[in-house]
């Protein structure tokens, strides 16, 4: 009876503080929105409007047809040059990211079935370079198909992300990364604040139990964190136009598991960090950075060295990224969702049990 009243008193206090102190609301709602907008618009792995220099040494109908293939593509802004030297100068100035070189014997060789087309790509950004190379080959394949009368037929078919827009798989991953930070910051900072202001000391000598203090931190910030999650999904769907293929309820349940793990991580951090600055630093280093690099949201886990792959298993965001990408892009694929959700649940339990075990009603 008195335990329930204590918990109720703490919950009411926490809610009043959330309402009056804008910092918690800012972390839960404003931070994910701002980060999602910045990253959502800024991070894109598509190469668009590539400035492409095309050197045509001997103009002719065949060459014109080939160049038109680039002009139609949304990825290229072709500029014509007569000599390779001019095109190379343009690349040196940074005006061209790639050069396609049709040598003087292009028409003859093409008719013979083996035209030499030179491709020079600026390799400073290796990722962009590979993408451009792929695009050029696609245009080339299209040209050959049209010209060769169906001898070579290239028909790319991409499953799960038919428009092959990187944003459609980056945004769900981003949500996972951002909510990792938000969840950990929420609990870590508010408990550090109690230490800073000396109120934790006063709380600890009342009959309140440590699990009540932790529960009173977990519940309100769980609600708040889920609010931030809902906001992020809304931005993804309505602003970035990412289509949710799976069910809303699977998304909600997975998010709840993930939020418990992230908040539990925050509680763990708060057991070592007793001021807000340190708590914030630890939260960023131990949650945001690993989630960014090791969750598989940008960098494919399968292509990492074995040792790093093992480390990724302790990053909660990894499981959530998998679930989100599958729920958004493919639908409720239970063979993906079930094991990842189980991993999230396990991590949530481990963090919360650890946080409870470490927390003491003492200063030392």
């Amino acid at each position, binding site marked *: 009876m*008195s335990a329930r*009243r*204590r918990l*109720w*008193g*703490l919950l*009411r*206090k926490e809610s*009043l*503080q959330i309402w*009056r*102190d804008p910092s918690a609301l800012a972390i839960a709602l404003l931070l994910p929105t701002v980060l999602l907008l910045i990253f959502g618009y800024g991070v894109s792995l598509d190469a668009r409007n590539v400035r492409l220099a095309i050197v045509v040494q001997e103009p002719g109908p065949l060459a014109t047809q080939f160049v038109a293939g680039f002009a139609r593509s949304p990825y290229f802004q072709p500029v014509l040059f007569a000599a390779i030297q001019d095109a190379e100068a343009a690349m040196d100035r940074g005006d061209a990211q790639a050069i396609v070189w049709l040598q003087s014997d292009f028409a003859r060789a093409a008719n013979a079935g083996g035209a030499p087309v030179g491709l020079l790509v600026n390799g400073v950004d290796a990722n962009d370079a590979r993408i451009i190379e792929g695009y050029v080959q696609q245009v080339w394949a299209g040209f050959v198909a049209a010209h060769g009368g169906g001898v070579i037929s290239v028909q790319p078919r991409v499953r799960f992300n038919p428009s092959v827009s990187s944003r459609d798989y980056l945004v769900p991953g981003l949500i996972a990364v951002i909510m990792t930070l938000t969840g950990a910051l929420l609990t870590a900072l508010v408990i550090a604040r109690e230490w800073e*202001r*000396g*109120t934790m*000391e*006063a*709380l*600890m*000598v*009342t*009959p*309140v139990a440590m699990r009540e203090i932790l529960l009173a931190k977990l519940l309100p910030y769980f609600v708040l964190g889920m609010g931030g999650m809902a906001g992020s999904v809304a931005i993804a769907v309505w602003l970035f136009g990412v289509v949710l293929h799976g069910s809303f309820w699977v998304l909600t349940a997975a998010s709840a598991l993930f939020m418990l793990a992230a908040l539990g991580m925050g509680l763990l951090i708060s057991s070592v960090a007793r001021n807000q600055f340190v708590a914030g630093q630890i939260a960023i280093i131990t949650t945001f950075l690993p989630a960014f690099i090791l969750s598989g949201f940008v960098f494919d886990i399968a292509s990492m060295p074995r040792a790093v792959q093992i480390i990724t298993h302790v990053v909660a965001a990894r499981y959530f990224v998998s679930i989100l990408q599958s729920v958004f892009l493919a639908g409720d694929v239970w063979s993906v969702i079930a094991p990842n959700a189980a991993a999230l649940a396990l991590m949530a339990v481990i963090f919360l049990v650890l946080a409870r075990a470490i927390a003491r*009603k*003492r*200063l*030392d």
Partner: protein
Amino acid sequence: MPPATEPAPAGEAVRLVALSRAFGSGKLRVAALDAVSAVAASGAVTGLIGPDGAGKTTLMRLICGLLRPDHGRIEVFGADIAGPRATAAMQARLGYMPQRFGLYEDLTVQENLDLYADLRGLPPDERPGRYGELLHMTGLAGFTARMAGRLSGGMKQKLGLACTLVRAPDLLLLDEPTVGVDPVSRRELWEIIDHLTGTAGMSVLFSTAYLDEAARCDAVLLLHQGRLLGAGPPEEMTAPLAGRVFATPVPAPARRHAQARLAAMDGVIDAVIQGDGVRLVLARAPTAPSLDGHALTAVAPRFEDGFVARLRGDDPPPARHLPADPPAPREDGAPVIVVEHLTRRFGSFVAVRDVSFSVRRGEIFGLLGANGAGKSTCFRMLCGLLPASEGRLEVAGFDLRRAAAPARGQIGYMAQKFSLYGDLSVRQNLRFFAAAYGLRGTSLRDRIDWAVGEFDLAPMLGGNARDLPLGFKQRLALACALMHQPRILFLDEPTSGVDPLARREFWRRISLLAESGVTVLVTTHFMEEAEYCDRLVIMAQGAVLAAGSPDAIKKNAGGGDGATMEDAFIAVIEAAATARAA
């Protein structure tokens, strides 16, 4: 006040047995408490008295179960508190108010009370009656809807107490509840405590750095550097001094000089300025009715006399070189610091309101007030660190609005908490501050040598500033502020928390500096330190309530002979409150 939930057993409330606790590790391990054994009686007020670093807070936290002792044990009402179950049982009977009162500043007075009532399990039907009593007792009845963060320091202190008392505990621990709080609120707090112990039989443990509060306790535990220096009723500590404490009247202009001379004389344990003269504690009863030409009148010893005598180990300090020269005649030229109609706002909050004063060369000028009175804000504006919202500020002939940088070059500034670089050694701190003020080469080396000699820094030169005892830090901070030989010295709460010996030493240096022509501006919340000032202003809520020499302020406040600065301060604040109510 209803009786305590369970009547405390007669006898002892707290028993400490060979209690030790250290912090840090390896070479840096420092004993905060060293084999302390003591008993606090139940139904009484026991004072934990000592300067910062004495171990008061560590002891409080050990008793309320927030820390575990390294050695020794603690009994509360006869039960050992070791082990989680025993600690929980003890905490159910305990009220603890930590140093910053443990309040949620973004909750209202009522919401804070509700929270602690929930946490301490006060049944809802008992709440209206209990709230009524507490609000009446603390004078907060009219403020229940106000945010705790917007209360004055004294009101926060009382709300913290009300939250601790929401379910009357058997043992009440108050950690420095009065530090930095205005004297009126301090007096009211003591009335509440007397009421609690008198009618409710509550046992109270009260820690303070103000030595004058010892006299209000039934018994004191005198702590110094983690050791118990004495225990017992406060009168017991002063008894051996009977017949050795005297007062001698000295007129104002020569008072500080006479005090410095007397303090340096053989056989004098302590000499401080008090009221209209000098208070003396002698090593043995005097043979003549006068000393150095000053007639001696016997007075009753007070607690601070006893503390200083104990710290000095009853050995008078070795006779020093007597400052023989009479103070240089003051030039009554243009004032060095001029403040006119100074106002500073932070949003809608007025931190400093229409403050005016001027300071002449070689004067010690004080800003006296509680925490939050606006002293430090005034200071930051005078240092050119914070622009004024309105008003004129002139330091050493420079208008701070236009020429803050050249004015700053004339100023030595000692910030609150001493602002030293903790990871630098004493020598590196000195070198840094000297270089920051533009000293190079030989002049830099000369000044460092001067500082090391003048402030006795040689034994600690290589150690990091962080690890210095507080009194040492204070000396080093003053040395750093003096490296560029400033003509003006700003001291922001320079003596807060240091022990009485360090405080005396500090004021001796400041007096000498003033005599050599340095103008000193100092803030303090120690009422008795105001006596060292030539002139001062009393500030409250950002405004100046009284200005003048200590004698004039005491006289205007209606105090008779022997009135202290604290009496005057209370009279001035009450007069202002009456004027506002009218």
